[in-house]
C-alpha cells in the first residue's frame, strides 16, 4: 500500500517561516505545468480576440515616450541634457518603467482574475503568481527587443553591456513582483488599494528619471536619489546604451534586500489566500 499524503487544515498557522518557504517552493515546482498552462491560456485568449494583438503590449509606454519627445522637440518643455539622443532616453525610460509597473500590478491582477477559481478549487495558489511572471516575461521580451531596436535606430550602437540587460530586466521583475505580493491580499479585500497604487505610481514616475534625468541640485534631486526605483531605471538604461553604470552599488543593495523580501511576500500571499477566499467571494 502506497503511503498517502496527509493534509491537516486547522486554525493554528505553522509559523515556521523556513517550513512555509519550503512548502511554497515545493508547490511552485509541483504546479509548474499549471502555471505555464494558465499563462498560455491568457496570452492565447488575449491575442485571438484582437487584430493588433501583440502591439498592445507596448503601445502605451511608446505613446507616453512619444508625447515627451514631442514636448521636448517642440520646445514646450526643456529637459536637461541627457547625454544621449532624447528619443532613446525617453523610450527606454517609459518601456523600463512600464515593465516595473506591470510587474507590481501583475500578482493582484492574476489573483483577481482567478477569483472564481480560488473559491472553488484547491490548487497551489503560487501558480497564479508564477503564471503572472510568465506573462510578464513574454511582454517584457517584446519590450527588450523594442529597446535594442531603438539603440541601433538612433545610432547608439552595440555595447557589450547589452548582454547584462536581461539581468537588469529580471531585477525589475523581481522587485515589482515582491512589492505586488505584499499589496495583493489587501487589494483583494478593498478596491481602494489598486486605485491608490495606480495613482501613486503615476506620481512616482515623475520623481524617477524616466523621461528626464536627475537634476544637479534641489529638492527633486534629493527625492530622486532616495527613490529605490531610480537605480533600477538608471542602471538598466546605462547597460542599454553602454555608459558607466553609476548607480550599480545602490542597485545591488536594492536587489539584495529584495530577494529575502520576495520569499516573505510569497509566504504572506500563501497564508493570506484562505482569508481572502472567506471574505471576498
Amino acid at each position, binding site marked *: 500500500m502506497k503511503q*498517502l*499524503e*496527509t*493534509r*491537516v*487544515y*486547522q*486554525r*493554528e*498557522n505553522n*509559523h515556521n517561516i523556513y517550513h512555509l518557504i519550503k512548502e511554497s517552493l515545493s508547490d511552485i515546482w509541483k504546479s509548474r*505545468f*499549471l502555471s505555464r*498552462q*494558465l499563462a498560455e*491560456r*491568457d496570452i*492565447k*485568449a488575449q491575442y*485571438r*480576440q484582437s487584430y493588433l494583438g501583440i502591439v498592445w503590449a507596448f503601445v502605451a509606454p511608446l505613446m507616453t515616450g512619444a508625447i515627451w519627445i514631442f514636448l521636448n522637440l517642440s520646445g514646450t518643455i526643456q529637459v536637461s541634457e541627457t547625454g544621449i539622443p532624447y528619443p532613446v532616453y525617453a523610450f527606454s525610460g517609459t518601456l523600463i518603467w512600464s515593465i516595473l509597473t506591470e510587474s507590481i500590478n501583475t500578482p493582484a491582477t492574476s489573483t483577481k482574475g482567478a477569483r*472564481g*477559481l*480560488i*473559491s*472553488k*478549487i*484547491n*490548487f497551489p495558489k503560487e501558480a497564479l503568481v508564477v503564471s503572472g511572471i510568465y506573462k510578464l516575461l513574454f511582454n517584457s521580451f517584446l519590450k527588450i527587443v523594442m529597446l535594442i531596436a531603438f539603440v541601433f535606430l538612433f545610432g547608439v550602437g552595440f555595447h557589450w553591456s547589452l548582454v547584462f540587460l536581461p539581468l537588469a530586466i529580471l531585477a525589475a521583475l523581481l522587485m515589482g513582483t515582491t512589492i505586488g505580493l505584499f499589496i495583493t*491580499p*489587501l487589494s483583494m*479585500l*478593498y478596491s481602494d488599494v489598486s486605485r491608490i497604487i495606480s495613482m501613486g505610481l503615476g506620481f512616482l514616475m515623475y520623481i524617477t528619471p524616466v523621461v528626464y534625468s536627475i537634476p544637479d541640485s534641489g529638492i527633486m534631486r534629493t527625492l530622486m536619489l532616495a527613490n529605490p526605483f531610480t537605480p533600477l531605471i538608471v542602471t538598466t538604461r546605462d547597460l542599454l546604451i553602454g555608459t558607466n553604470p553609476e548607480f550599480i552599488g545602490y542597485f545591488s543593495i536594492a536587489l539584495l534586500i529584495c530577494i529575502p523580501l520576495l520569499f516573505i511576500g510569497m509566504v*504572506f500571499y500563501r*497564508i*493570506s489566500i*484562505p*482569508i*481572502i*477566499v*472567506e*471574505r*471576498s467571494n
Partner: protein
Amino acid sequence: MQEKEILVKAEGLSKKFCKDLKTSLWYGVKDLISNLSRDDHKRNLRDKEFWAVRNINFELRRGECLGLIGHNGAGKSTLLKILNGLIKPDEGKVTIKGKVGALIELGAGFNPILSGRENIYNNGAVLGFSRKEIEEKLNEIIDFAELREFIDMPVQNYSSGMKVRLGFAVAAQMEPDVLIIDEVLAVGDLGFVLKCFKTIDKILPKTAIVFVSHSMPTVSRVCNQIIVMEHGKSMYNGSNVGKGIDKYYARFIENESNVVFTDNSIELIDAKIESPKGQINWNDNLKVYYHFKLLKDIPVPEFFTIIVDKEQRPVALLEKNLSGVIIEKDGHIMFAVSHNELQLSKGIYSINIAVRSSVNKEPIYRKNSIINFQVIHENETWEPFLLKSTYEVCSYNNPLNKG
C-alpha cells in the same frame, strides 16, 4: 471484514462568518495582520458575527459515502470549503489522507474563447493533472464527453450542457482517495446524469465520498452515513440514513394549510381523518371526512382528494364522487371518502383537496396540506408504493408457455 483506513477525520469543526460586508472586510485586514503574529488565542464571536458551521465531527473510511443535507444556508457549502482546504476552520481540525478531488464546479479554468481541446488542458491543469497525463487521456475525455465533432470549436459556442459534459469528462479522470461532490450533477440531460452516477458507482468502493445534495432518493441510494445540518450545527449525525432524511423532512412539514385557488362559491370548514395521531398502519383503511359550506347556489361539485408526499410530489388520487352520491343540506356538504388497504410506502404524506364544478368542469376551489398523516411500516422503502404481493412456487415452464 477488516476495517478500512480512515481517510477523512473532522474534529469539532467550526467556522464563523460576518453578516456585514464592511465589517467583514475589516476583520479580514485584522486577520491578515494577526496571521503574521503568533496570535492564536481562543476565538470568540466578534460583533456581527455568527457561527456558520459549529462543532461538526465525523470520520469517513474508504468506500464510505457521507451525505450532507440541510436547507439552504445551513452551512453545507462552508463545510465543503473547509474540507477542500479553501478556507480555514476557526476551531477544530480536519485530517485528510490521500488525493482529494472536488466536483464543486465543473469546467474550472475554461476560457470561452479557446477551443474545447485547449480547455481540456486548462481544466486538467487546474485539477492537478500533468501534461503527460492529459495527453494520455485526451481521447478518452473527448469520447466520454461525446464532443468529438465540436472539440475544436470555441467553448463559448457550446451549450451549457455541453460545457458541463466536457467538465465532467475531465473531472471523471481523477482517481481521488477522497471525493467531495456538491450538487453539480443536477444539470445536464438524463443520459448524462445516468453516466455521472455510473462513474460515481465505479469509483465509490475505492474512495471516501462527501456528498451534498437536496435529492433524497439519491442520498439514500449512495450514502451510508448522514449529517443533517441546521444553522451550522449537526442535527443528526449517524449511519441511519432513513432517520436523518426524516429529520430533514420534518423541518419542511407545513402544518399551515393554504387555499391555493377559490372562486368564492365553496369553502372548506373542516377535514379529518379517522386514525389516532394521524398515523395509519400500512394496509389499513384511509377514511377522510369533509365539511364544506356553499357560498353560492351551485350544484354539488366534484371532489378530488390528492395525496402528496413530503417533497410535494403528487403520488395518488382518490376517485371523484359519482353524481348524486353526495347531497347538499342547508348550504352545507358533509361526506366521507374511503380507500381500503392503503399501500403507500412508509413515510409522511399530506392531502390536498381540489373541487371542480360538475357543470363545466372548471376548478372552483383548491386547498393544500389540509391533513398530514404518516404511514407506518417497519421497512424503509423509497418507491412511493409498497404493494401487497404473494409468492408461490411454480415450475419454470409454467404458466407462461402454456400458450
